[in-house]
């Protein structure tokens, strides 16, 4: 595959603003792109807007939420589809075949009164156009591919008979069954124990390679991002505050919030005995602030930080190359 094709964005989000309830802006000025085959992590604490962003890309905003403005484009060139404001018909065409999702609590996303086999078959037959026998064979293949031994047995089981980890594998099997371009995992491993979590993440990586899948991993867990994502987007209070290649961002954070997060997360630092916390609270949902939304809690805050809106600007830190950005005026200043 030519690098040019690979460089084309598979998902392009531009200037997304989402508000909930009584016009409270919960996601503001969010722009990012995901290239073909790339794995991107969207990281943030609860309330950071990462879930709403993810739901917007999937067309699953709650009744109280709506996209104020911005664009979400899936694919490029003649295949490009604008997803904001898309109608049910467009979504039905796009979901499953071009974008698929895996959520937390896999058991609840499967129909409790249908067998596993039936549910995987159904996708293949209804949307993949396979006949009954072909679908069954492909289902068994898929179930085996996602790491379920005794796929034949699992085929006949009902969801309530399987464990969480196994169910998540089934959901993943369904998600990749139609060979989508993008797989969005929203806290997909949060409810699983660490061993199973590691297995699922490894599965996702493997599938990325075999199916040329782009991955958008939405999580609050930095360790997951560190392990699985090539690039990371850090969200805080509805905005992207930093973005760039994962090892660079986590190794040399260029935003005070990311720095603080690393302090709290203590990845790989076994010697530390004290528990760091970030003093203060994130701003209330929809609260309008004059400048940087992290400023009230930031140890580097200065007058220029609250003077006006801070853009997500490219950062040319010594260690980083192109592709890094930070929403911090104090950092973008060359040392």
């Amino acid at each position: 595959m030519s690098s040019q094709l690979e460089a084309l964005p598979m998902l392009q989000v531009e200037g997304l603003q989402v508000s909930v309830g009584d016009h409270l802006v919960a996601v503001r000025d969010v722009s990012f792109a995901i290239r073909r085959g790339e794995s991107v992590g969207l990281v943030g604490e609860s309330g950071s807007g990462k879930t709403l962003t993810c739901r917007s890309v999937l067309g699953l905003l709650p009744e109280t939420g709506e996209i104020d403005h911005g664009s979400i484009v899936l694919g490029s060139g003649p295949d490009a589809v604008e997803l904001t404001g898309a109608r049910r018909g467009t979504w039905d065409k796009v979901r499953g075949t071009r974008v698929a999702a895996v959520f937390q609590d896999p058991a609840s996303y499967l129909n409790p009164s249908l067998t596993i086999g039936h549910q995987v078959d159904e996708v293949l037959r209804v949307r993949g156009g396979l006949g009954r026998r072909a679908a069954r064979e492909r289902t068994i293949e898929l179930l085996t591919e996602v790491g379920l031994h005794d796929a034949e047995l699992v085929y006949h089981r009902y969801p309530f008979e399987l464990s969480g980890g196994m169910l998540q594998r089934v959901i993943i099997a369904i998600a990749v069954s139609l060979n989508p371009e993008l797989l969005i995992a929203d806290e997909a491993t949060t409810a699983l124990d660490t061993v199973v979590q590691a297995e699922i993440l490894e599965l996702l990586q493997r599938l990325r390679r075999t199916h040329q899948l782009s991955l958008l991993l939405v999580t609050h867990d930095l360790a997951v991002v560190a392990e699985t994502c090539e690039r990371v987007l850090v969200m805080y209070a509805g905005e992207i505050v930093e973005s760039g290649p994962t090892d660079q961002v986590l190794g040399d954070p260029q935003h005070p919030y990311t720095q603080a997060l690393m302090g709290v997360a203590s990845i790989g630092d076994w010697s530390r005995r004290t528990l760091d916390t970030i003093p203060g609270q994130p701003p209330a949902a929809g609260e309008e602030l004059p400048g940087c939304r992290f400023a009230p809690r930031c140890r580097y805050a200065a007058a220029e930080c609250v003077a006006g809106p801070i853009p997500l600007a490219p950062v040319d830190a010594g260690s980083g190359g192109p592709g890094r950005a930070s929403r911090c005026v104090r950092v973008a200043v060359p040392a």
Partner: protein
Amino acid sequence: MASATTGATLTPQTAVPAAASTRRGGAAPHLLAALRPLGRLLLTTATVLFLASVITFALGAFSKSNPAATVLGETATEQDIATMNHQFGLDRPLVPRYFTWLGDALHGDLGKSWFTTVPVSDSIKQALPVDLSIALLALVLAILLGTGAGVAAALRAGGFVDRAVTVVCSVVATLPPFVIGIALIVLLAVKARLLPAGGYVALDVDPVQWLRFSILPALALSIEVAANIARQLRTSLVGALRENYAIGAEMRGFSRRRVLFGHVLRNAISPTLAVIGMAIPLIIGGAVMTEKLFNLPGIAQLALQSAQRGDVPVVLGTLLVTAVIVLIGSLVVNALQLMLNPAARRAGTLTGGAR
């Protein structure tokens, strides 16, 4: 970076929790799993049947009515009463009488009418088909109308159809069946002269005429039930459409219709089935009313006439037979509920098995 536990699977990936079967997959283990609760269902049904028969017999036992009074009225003498009581076996002790009566009933013999000495089962065999055919028509109409309205309302919840259905159902539910029946008669039979206001032709004699005479009573019976079904179904469906598994189905790119019919309906239908189950005694009870309204020669007329004469065996027979019919209907509905929801087969809890 990755932990050392990846690669080899530490957690055994066998699909079946400890105590379950080791057979290869297939529908067989699930049918067997359904048998136990089915067995319990049969036991409950049998008990209820037994209790119903006891109550019925007790009514007869407490009755002051006797064959002599029924036939001879006020001219009956002590001697007449004693003779006829003996003739009908009423001077035997209660418990053996009950068992004889029950035993005979199980064989289809419900005794003889005190008034006409015609076997009760014969009279019932003549009268029952009238009610059954109309009740069945009513049930079919109710299910068709109710599910149609409920599904239409749920497909576009909050839309025009939904609101219209809600209003209609609310209005209709305040009206008892015989009021609706009277309204129908007035509108369609008296004013518009479209359909007859009364009378009956048996189904096997002339199906078209049967339909002509049956449609109004069946409609009157069905409307209340249809409204209940529509309301319950709509609520269940709209609630279920918000559940995660419906979202999961939506995420696979399934259309609204497929999500509703292929996934949500089968899970959400259980409370609606319960409503249908409760409708069966309603319809049977209502059939009694419509018989009078529409002048149908059914079981209620039989019961009424016999009740007026004090003809106990016929009255008891009709009670027992209608109770059995309602019971069978309930049994079917309960069994259907069991079949449709595999998780409910396990110890009656909804949360299912091991995680």
